[in-house]
């Protein structure tokens, strides 16, 4: 049993696995009326998992499972945030799923397994571990998209997601196999060493890199691998869209760091993937922002907005400096915070048999509920990157990283597309504040959701006034881990 010691760094994952199985079985014995028990158990599991992550955290990287698993500061931070994001998602999802008959054991089991997949991805120090986590996440997500069996749109979205996702996984796997062929190892720390020293197999490594970047591009949803994003976002039930759009981005960021910054971070290879990321980033900013303008469906608009945010995320990564990676991590945290809030408002306005997903459903929200209109205003300005909301500092730190390495013209392109992006965020504010309401049904939501959504929305402002702690956390996490 030597090869799995020490075991404690993996306690959060193991605990989550055990609890997911227990909840899956326990749910069989719970009647529909008492489904709230499953919900509470799931939430308790996630909260305990977050606590476990916190208390097993450590500043220095610890390798275990014969070097397949790593527990470092970045992993701890991202896992903790993942748990919090999933807990928030479930709170927002409760009323919505109850009203649509999705409040069932499968939903919670899938959420837990997907979370487990994310945590494994985040802590992977071996390409197989990474792939294992990725597939666990992806398969759970495919099933979740198709959870509403009778919905044609959801089924179509699930199909599309599955086919494209499988293709992306295949590409990633192909790239990994070539890395193995060139270096003879799958362990990320060893890969980093070997790919830097070995100059003979450079051509194979670059070839592998192409596939890996393409695979990562799919998972992030960056142009030109973004086709699935709008359809899945729009087609999936809103709670599932919220889930896909939020926590998995932490895991995606983690594998980008592990694969590109760590395993293939050698100077010669860095130059290669920087070029690829640069093209992907600029295209994502362009197509994401320009296409979002034309959308009338809020979920689809947010899908394109996600694509443009991923472009910004890639900008931080391609600067290739620790500051840049830290900026990207800060960006992804802020992005998830804003996405949770924005979808939270969509879910708040939805009710049994009514999806508040058209932009017109937001008309006059200020007259129906000034408080939630104000929160949505903060979220929209934050997404547009207007100070004093936290979205501005996310953009600022990424731009600073890009300018620092001399790519100031990229920064100019990025801000110009942000300007275009500001238009469609402003349009939401316009609908909420300037127009008369069309839908006058009173808002109904549980106290838990109201409270959490308020905290979520205000966090955008509070972190905007005091961004320092979160920034330091991200930069320290990256410094200690890469």
């Amino acid at each position, binding site marked *: 049993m030597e090869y799995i010691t020490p075991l404690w760094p993996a306690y959060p994952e193991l605990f989550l696995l055990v609890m997911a199985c227990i909840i899956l079985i326990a749910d069989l014995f719970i009647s529909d009326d008492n489904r709230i028990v499953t919900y509470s158990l799931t939430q308790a599991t996630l909260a305990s998992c977050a606590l476990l992550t916190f208390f097993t955290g450590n500043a220095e990287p610890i390798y275990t499972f014969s070097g397949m698993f790593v527990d470092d500061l970045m992993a701890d931070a991202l896992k903790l945030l993942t748990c919090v994001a999933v807990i928030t998602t479930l709170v927002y999802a409760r009323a919505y799923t109850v009203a649509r008959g999705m409040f069932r054991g499968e939903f919670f089991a899938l959420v837990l397994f997907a979370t487990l997949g994310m945590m494994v991805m985040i802590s992977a120090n071996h390409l197989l571990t990474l792939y294992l986590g990725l597939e666990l996440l992806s398969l759970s997500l495919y099933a979740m998209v198709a959870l509403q069996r009778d919905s044609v749109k959801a089924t179509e979205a699930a199909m599309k997601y599955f086919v494209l996702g499988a293709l992306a996984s295949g590409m990633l796997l192909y790239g990994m196999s070539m890395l193995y062929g060139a270096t003879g190892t799958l362990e990320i720390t060893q890969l980093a060493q070997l790919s830097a020293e070995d100059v003979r197999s450079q051509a194979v490594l670059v070839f592998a890199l192409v596939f890996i970047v393409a695979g990562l591009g799919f998972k992030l949803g960056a142009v030109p691998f973004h086709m699935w994003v709008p359809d899945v976002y729009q087609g999936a039930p809103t709670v599932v869209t919220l889930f896909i759009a939020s926590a998995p981005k932490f895991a995606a960021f983690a594998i980008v760091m592990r694969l590109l910054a760590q395993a293939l971070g050698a100077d010669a290879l860095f130059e290669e993937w920087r070029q690829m990321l640069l093209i992907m980033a600029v295209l994502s900013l362009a197509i994401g922002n320009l296409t979002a303008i034309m959308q009338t469906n809020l979920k689809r608009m947010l899908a394109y907005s996600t694509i443009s945010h991923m472009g910004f995320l890639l900008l931080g990564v391609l600067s290739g400096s620790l500051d840049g990676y830290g900026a990207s991590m800060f960006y992804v945290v802020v992005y998830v915070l804003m996405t949770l809030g924005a979808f939270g408002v969509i879910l708040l306005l939805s009710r049994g048999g009514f999806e508040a997903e058209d932009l017109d459903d937001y008309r006059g929200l*200020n007259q129906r509920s*000034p408080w939630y209109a104000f929160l949505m*205003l903060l979220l929209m*300005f934050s997404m547009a990157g*207007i*100070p*004093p909301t936290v979205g*501005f*500092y996310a953009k*600022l*730190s990424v*731009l*600073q990283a890009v*300018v*620092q390495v001399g790519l*100031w013209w990229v*920064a*100019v392109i990025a*801000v*110009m597309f*942000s*300007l275009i992006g*500001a*238009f469609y965020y*402003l349009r939401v*504010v*316009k609908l909420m*504040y*300037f127009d008369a309401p069309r839908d006058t049904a009173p808002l109904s939501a549980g106290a838990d959701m109201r409270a959490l959504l308020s905290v979520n929305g205000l966090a955008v402002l509070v972190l905007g006034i005091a*961004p*320092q702690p979160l*920034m*330091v956390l991200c*930069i320290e996490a990256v410094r200690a881990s890469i």
Partner: protein
Amino acid sequence: MQGLPLLSLAIWVPIIAGFAVLFTGGDRNAQAARVIALIGAVLGFAVTIPLYTGFDLLQASFQFGELKPWIETFNINYHLGIDGISLLLILLNSFTTILVVLAAWEAIQTRVAQYMAAFLVLSGLMNGVFSALDAMLFYVFFEATLIPMFIIIGVWGGPNRVYAAMKFFLYTLLGSLLSLVALIVLYNAAGGSFAFLDLYATPLPIIIQVLVFIAFFMAFAVKVPMWPVHTWLPDAHVEAPTGGSVVLAAIMLKLGGYGFLRLSLPIVPDASILLAPVVIGLSLIAVVYIGLVALVQTDMKKLIAYSSISHMGFVTLGIFLFNAQGVEGAIIQMISHGFVSGALFLCVGVLYDRMHSRQIADYGGVANRMPVFAALFMLFAMANAGLPGTSGFVGEFLVIMGAVKVNFWFAFAAAITLIFGAAYTLWMYKRVVFGPVANSNVAELKDINAREFLILGVLAVLVLVMGVWPQPFAEVLHVSVSELLTHVSYSKLPVQ
């Protein structure tokens, strides 16, 4: 008063009051919202008075400094401090807020709390712009002002308000985003600091200076606004509610002029001198051509909006003359324009509240029904035309004096506009106020009430005082302006 963080109070008292107003809830408690807003505005102005009384006229460096670390990762500090230039603008801003709250007392009946809150928050943010000594802090305040103004135009504006609000927001955002990149470039050049004083001391090659200048110019020229990026202003002014127009004209446009003085000139002096002819050319076009455009307007608010652009042309002209008369004249012109244009928009607001029309053609013979109002309106019209003895004269005269020193023809072109200015203002005044009573609506007009008289009367006194005795306004400027010009006179090109 020693030891109180006066500048922080000037920023945060209005903002906190603004949020307090929001908590009064819906329009059922509208009166409470008005009272709290007025208290907040008066308190906000009260805390700025010690800034003037305690201001050291002989000190060249920034006064009332406050320094606290804010975002240590980027070495950004909560660094405040003012010189004479900022002092006047802060006083103007805090004072105008009181007038705006009073002017909306009866005119705004829907969503009163949100209206008052937006103006109070806006006022605090603009004080932040005027007192920030850290470029990123400046930028945060500068950008944040867009949010309340966007809401003000869009919610309480006229029929075409959505278009105007969007145009206002996106136009100004375009410039400021470019200047954000410029600031980041400067941050790296200065070795990781956003502090103005560090940026002032950083040598920069001319090509970088020119690019940075262009980026800043995009931000501040849009804000001023200068020809040809002025087109958002008439739309915004016409659609905005009275208070919005007043704040826009009296304070927000000054953010642009202030930006030139605080950022462009001292940070990139060589590029400023190199490109000054372009800026002066654009300013003169604004002064003359926009003056002619103002002449043909049929909408009172639009006419005053164009007149604002023309007057702000004097400001940019004065700034880029790089001599003491020019720069001081520009600043005095900014303050005077704050009083006069604010007063003119309030006058139009008084008429609009009664008649719900801004068209000049709908009026005529107002003097017969509203003699007190007509007298005050007359004073402001004269000040707008630059009549000696009013505040409008002082700034324009100084700028023209400064221009003569540089080039006679600059001064000549600028002086022509005094004629146009008199023409469009007085012609409008004649058509609206004089003559026989034009129609039955005018016949039913009632003269201004005590509240309106108070607002306009105070402004009238200020316009006259500043015209007859500009000393209290000018004396705080001398040292600050000469300090600024010293910065401009040293080349910042790196030594070969």
